[in-house]
């Protein structure tokens, strides 16, 4: 069974530029999550999708971050414009159901904002 795929793996941009990350979850998983992990900290949930719909985006900085999950499969997370404090690893995860705490994570995208 293929795992969660993410791209790119690394990205370096300057502040005020925009960037987008892509995620392909495990086949059949209805729930998709985007997390931000700052060095030395645990992952923090940014947004959660159940199929096409958003179920939790309470910690998403909506003035600069946006995400979509078209057709209930792949998802993209965008930052525009980026700030220095956005430097982090962005993790995508999926699970069979949104009440399932056993989430499966991708390798992450390491973002550095200069």
């Amino acid at each position, binding site marked *: 069974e293929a795992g*969660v795929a993410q791209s790119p793996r690394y990205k370096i941009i300057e502040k005020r530029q925009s960037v987008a990350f892509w995620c392909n979850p495990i086949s059949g998983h209805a729930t998709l999550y985007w997390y931000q992990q700052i060095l*030395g*900290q645990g*992952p923090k949930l940014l947004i959660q999708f159940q199929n096409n719909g958003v179920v939790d985006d309470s910690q998403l900085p909506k003035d600069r971050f946006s995400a979509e999950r078209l057709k209930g499969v792949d998802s993209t997370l965008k930052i525009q414009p980026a700030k220095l404090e956005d430097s982090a690893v962005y993790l995508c995860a999926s*699970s069979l*159901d949104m009440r399932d705490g056993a*989430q499966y994570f991708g390798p*992450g995208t390491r973002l550095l904002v200069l």
Partner: protein
Amino acid sequence: EDQVTQSPEALRLQEGESSSLNCSYTVSGLRGLFWYRQDPGKGPEFLFTLYSAGEEKEKERLKATLTKKESFLHITAPKPEDSATYLCAVQSHGSSNTGKLIFGQGTTLQVKP
């Protein structure tokens, strides 16, 4: 507010030296507690789910236990390949509609040969 605190932040062991990692939590009704392992440059990997006080789960050299206020991850006779960051996360009944996980900051374990 749901909160998870892990200790110690870092732990160095000699190969074969058993020890325990701690995860303390405060939640508005625990629905589940989860342990993950994270290797450098990789995403977290699911290890265990614990649902009620007194429950235990084992996998190779790892054993997770749960009380009403904390969980322990016991590592018996660790090997260098057990070196990783171990993350604890909780899911509360308050978040049962979305299943949101709250993660601790992790314990970084280094096992020296």
